[in-house]
C-alpha cells in the first residue's frame, strides 16, 4: 500500500514530528517501499494463530507493594532543559 505526502503529514502530526514538505515527499516514497515489503505479510495464512508478544510467552511479573525508590527529583531535574521551583517548564498552555 502506497502513502502520499499528505498521509505522511498526518502521521507526522500524530507522532508529534515536525516535517518539511520536501522531507514528507521523500518520506512518502521510502515509506511506500517499506509498506510494500511488509505487505508480503498479507499472503500468510494466520487463521487461528495467537499473536505472540513475548518470545517465551512470559506474563507480566508483579512485585510486592513496597516502597523501593527514594526521591531523586533534584538529580533527575538537573538535566531538564528548563525547571523552576521543582517543576518542569513548558510554554504557556492555558491563557
Amino acid at each position: 500500500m502506497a502513502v502520499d505526502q499528505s498521509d505522511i503529514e498526518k502521521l507526522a502530526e500524530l507522532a508529534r514530528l515536525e516535517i518539511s514538505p520536501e522531507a514528507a515527499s521523500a518520506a512518502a516514497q521510502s515509506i511506500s517501499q517499506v509498506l510494500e515489503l511488509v505487505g508480503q505479510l498479507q499472503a500468510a495464512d494466520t487463521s487461528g494463530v495467537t499473536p505472540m508478544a513475548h518470545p517465551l510467552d512470559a506474563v507480566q511479573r508483579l512485585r510486592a507493594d513496597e516502597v523501593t525508590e527514594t526521591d531523586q527529583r533534584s538529580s533527575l531535574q538537573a538535566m531538564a532543559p528548563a525547571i523552576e521551583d521543582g517543576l518542569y517548564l513548558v510554554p504557556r498552555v492555558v491563557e
Partner: protein
Amino acid sequence: MHTKTIAQLVSGLRSKAFSSVELTRHYLDRINSLDSKYNSFVTVTDDIALAQAEAADQRLAAGDASPLCGIPIAHKDIFCTLGVRTSCGSKMLDNFIAPYDATIVENYQRAGAVMLGKTNMDEFAMGSSNETSYYGPVKNPWNTQCVPGGSSGGSAAAVAALLAPAATASDTGGSIRQPAALCGLTGIKPTYGRVSRWGMIAFASSLDQAGTLTHTAEDAAIMLNAMASFDAKDSTCVDQPLEDYTAPLGDKLDGLTLGIPEEYFGEGLNPQTAERVQAAIKVYESLGAKVKAISLPHTHLAVPAYYVIAPAECSANLSRFDGVRYGYRCAEPKDLADLYKRSRGEAFGDEVKRRILVGTYALSAGYYDAYYNKAQQVRRLIKQDFVEAFKDVDVIVGPTAPNPAFEFGAKGDDPVAMYLEDIYTIATNLAGLPGLSIPCGLVDNKPVGLQLIGNYFAESRLLNAAHQFQLATDFHQQLAPETA
C-alpha cells in the same frame, strides 16, 4: 598487550606481567592516537578508566578471583553510565548525562572490569551500517572505505582495531551478529530475557537483547558470565539459573547435530560467502558433528514482520523524547505542540523518523489488525519453525549476513535494500533465540561470518560449538590490516 585475548590478559594480570593501570593506559593511548581513523568511540573516559584500574590492581593484589578484574572494556553508547554522557548515537541525547548505571554496567563494575569509554552506533540502534549516527559513520578496520555493520558498529570496530579487548553491544535484529561478521569477530546475542535490559535505551522492547563482541568464543563466555543476571528491574528478564559458560568449553562435538536451513542459502546470498560457510560446515563434520538439511518455511516473512513490530515498538518507546524532561529542546517554542514537534523534528535523524512514522501507521486506527496483529501472528509461525527444527537438531548453522562489508553509501536511499542485510539474523530476534557469529574466512580481504543459532538458553552449547571451531581453525586470529 593489545593482541592478547581476554583469557591471555587474565593470566598476564595474575602473573604480574603487567598491571591493570599499565594495560588500561596502553589501550587509552591506542584509542587516543588511532581512533581518528575509525571513529569508533563517542566518549573516552580516561579518568574513570584509570581510577577503576587502580582499584582493580588493589583487588588483584588482595587475591580477587573475578576473571574480568582489571580488564578494560568498552560499552556501546546505548547503555546508561552514571555521570557519563549516554548519547545513543543521537542529537536528541547529545547532552544527556545518565543519572544511573545500566544493570549490565553495574555487573561489569562488580566484576572489576575497567570502562574505557562509550562506542559509536547507529542512531537509537536503527541501522545496519553505522551510517545513521549523529557522530558520523564508523569505518571498518578491515577496509576503511567500507561500513563496519550496525548498529553496534563502534563496538565492533573498536575490538577489531584492537582498541579494546571486548565491548558490550545490543541486538534487536542483528546488531551484534552482523557487525561481528563484517569485522571478523565473535558476537553473541543471548536468549531474550537472559540479560537485563534495565538502563539499555529501548528501541523495540520485545526484541532488544544485550550481548558482547570479542575475538574469541572463550572471551565471549568470560564476558557473558559477568553480563547475564536475573534483574527484577527488567520485567521481561527471565528468572533462569545462571551458569558458568566457560565450563563446557572442553566438550567434544561428537554426536552434535547441525541443521542447515535451505532458506538461508537461496537467492540474495553472495556465492563466495556461501562457499566460506559451506567450508565451515565441512570443518564441523571433521570435528564429529552430523549435518542435517532442515527447512524454516516462514523465513521469507521474517523481515516483513520485523519491519512492522520493530517500528511499532520504536514509535511507542521514542515518544518519551519530548523536549521537556531531558534531551534536546528546540529554541523558542511558540507553544507546547511546537515544542514537541520541533524538538523531535530537529533532533531525530531520517531513519529514526522513518521508523517512527511506519510504526505510527501500523498502530493507527483501522490498520492495527492488518499490520501489527498480523505481524505478531506471523512471529509465532516463525518461532514454531524453530521449535520444530530443534526437535531434530542441536544447533542451526548458516551465514550471518548475505554479503561482506559494503562501501559507504552503497545502499543509497533504498531502506529496504539495507533492511535485507539482516535477513538471516532477524528471525532469531523474533523467536527470542540465542545467536552467535564467528569468523569463517575472507572474501575480497573482508571477513565472512558463520551464524550459529541455538535453542532457548543454549548459550553454553553455542559457545562451545564456536570454541571447538576456533580450536580447529585460525580465522578468529586473523587481524585487520595495520592494527597489530
